[in-house]
């Protein structure tokens, strides 16, 4: 492993003795990100886009720079295609209420996959219900993958929106988004790509993918909590009505009516999280310095090791694709006859942090016919020693329960 130096940047590991295997929920932050946020508040803090004084202009400037940095990172054509949000969830709500409410008609179809996080599912339930449209699902095969046949069967004429996760936050499945996007466009649908689990971990090029909308959260990629991104093709964003109304997103306001600002400001009502945007820009700098290819390589090495180690345990079932190239560094598993919450409590007692539960994907958990799963997820600061500690913890768990189950 070549990441000992990377790990040193994360002070939390000096302060807490933990094998942190829950980066799919939120990552830790390196000192470079924390310093950048601190530096912003100490040197450039003011309300952006408001004041005519130097500090406000500085705040505006660094906020705009952060936007350009995000645009370049995902290869957007222009930085006005980047809307800052609170997180991916807010960005998805924005799309459902703004694009969905505007464009869906009675009888239209919204197609999503059974892998979706509640954030790319529940908003579509509400909008399709209100518009009397249909919500349909692409299901997965035994390995947790969406097949070509399923794509062909579900994305048919009448489909107006396709919502798809790039990487499943439960199974780690890398979905065939290129095929899904091509198929969606062939029937005239737009694609909403939930890239929350992909943008932090691999190179995502929105132009190459030809995705219409892409969302992700900063806190899953080393940035502070409370900053997220909605990318949208300019021609689509331009036609969309604002979601939240208020300060800064307007053009002219009269007593009974208002006109709205250009994109992206139209979608950023109220004072924005500039500190968060600065933190996200610093996180992008940090990741780019390592290089996304190397990020992917570090994680894949960990994934291969962890999957092997877990599969060696006779009492563990690992879910998701067998082909390592179809998986990202998220592994869901269960321990025979032991509930995931008992597993995670016992792992916690030996300093291993994993997630247990439905991972905000209840329809998927029901579809898998399991009550819940244990999930270990990795990032650039994890080491094989973390995996070894997980395995030791699982052995301890099984020893404790063995005589009773």
């Amino acid at each position, binding site marked *: 492993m070549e990441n000992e130096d990377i790990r040193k940047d994360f002070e939390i590991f000096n302060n807490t003795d933990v094998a942190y295997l829950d980066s799919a929920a939120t990552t830790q932050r390196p000192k470079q990100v924390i310093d950048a946020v601190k530096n912003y508040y100490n040197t450039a803090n003011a309300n952006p886009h408001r004041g005519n004084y130097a500090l406000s202009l500085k705040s505006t400037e660094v906020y705009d720079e952060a936007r350009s940095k995000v645009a370049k990172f995902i290869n957007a054509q222009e930085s006005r295609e980047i809307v800052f949000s609170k997180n991916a969830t807010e960005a998805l709500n924005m799309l459902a209420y703004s694009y969905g409410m505007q464009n869906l008609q009675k009888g239209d179809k919204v197609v999503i996959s059974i892998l979706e996080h509640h954030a790319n599912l529940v908003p579509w339930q509400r909008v399709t219900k209100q518009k009397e449209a249909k919500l349909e699902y692409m299901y997965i095969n035994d390995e947790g993958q969406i097949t070509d046949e399923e794509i062909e069967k579900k994305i048919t004429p009448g489909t107006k929106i396709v919502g798809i996760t790039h990487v499943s936050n439960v199974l780690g499945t890398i979905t065939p988004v290129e095929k899904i996007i091509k198929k969606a466009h062939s029937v005239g649908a737009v694609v909403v790509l939930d890239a929350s689990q992909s943008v932090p971990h691999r190179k995502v090029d929105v132009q190459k993918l030809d995705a219409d909308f892409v969302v992700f959260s900063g806190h899953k990629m080393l940035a502070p909590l409370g900053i997220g991104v909605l990318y949208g093709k300019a021609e689509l964003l331009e036609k969309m009505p604002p979601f939240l109304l208020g300060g800064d997103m307007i053009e002219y306001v009269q007593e009974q009516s208002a006109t709205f600002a250009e994109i992206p400001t139209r979608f950023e009502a109220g004072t924005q999280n500039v500190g968060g945007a600065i933190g996200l820009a610093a996180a992008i700098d940090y990741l780019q310095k390592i290089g996304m290819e190397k990020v992917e390589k570090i994680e894949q090495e960990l994934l291969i090791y962890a999957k092997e180690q877990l599969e060696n345990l006779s009492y563990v079932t690992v879910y998701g694709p067998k082909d390592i190239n179809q998986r990202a560094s998220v592994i869901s598993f269960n321990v025979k006859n032991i509930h*995931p919450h008992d597993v995670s409590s*016992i792992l*916690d007692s030996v300093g291993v942090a994993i997630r247990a*539960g*439905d991972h905000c994907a209840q329809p998927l*958990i029901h579809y898998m016919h399991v*009550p819940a799963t244990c999930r270990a997820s990795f990032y650039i600061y994890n080491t094989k020693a973390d995996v070894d500690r997980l395995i030791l913890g699982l052995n301890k768990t099984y020893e*404790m329960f063995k005589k*009773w189950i």
Partner: protein
Amino acid sequence: MNDINSIYTDLIMEQSTSTHNKKKIENPDKCEMGRNPSCGDEISLSLKMDGDKIADMAFEGHGCAISQASTSIMIDLLKGKTREDAKDLVKTFIGMIKREITDDAELEKLEDAQALRNISNMPARVKCALLAWHTLEKML
């Protein structure tokens, strides 16, 4: 971090896997579902009264060791008790888990259910221990 062995005691382990209270009862007076949506824990409690007394109680469903053990221990404790006594015991148990009742003498009446006292040190698992008791609270 807590001492995990003070949570997963032999009594808890035994009760979590015991099936003596996990069954259907014929013609129950009341049935109630209890769910912890974030865990996926689901139990269905059935209650049969004989006048003012709990004649029989049983459960079905699935969940973690803590929720299963807690349910089974509750049934053992409350069978044969009057409605008022049962209400009082449920209140005492909830008070123990929430650390609102800490007096050992007062908790003694909970008998085996005292084994769940250390759950109060594990905030993430409190709702597992309370699931059955909250469900029953609605039925009494």
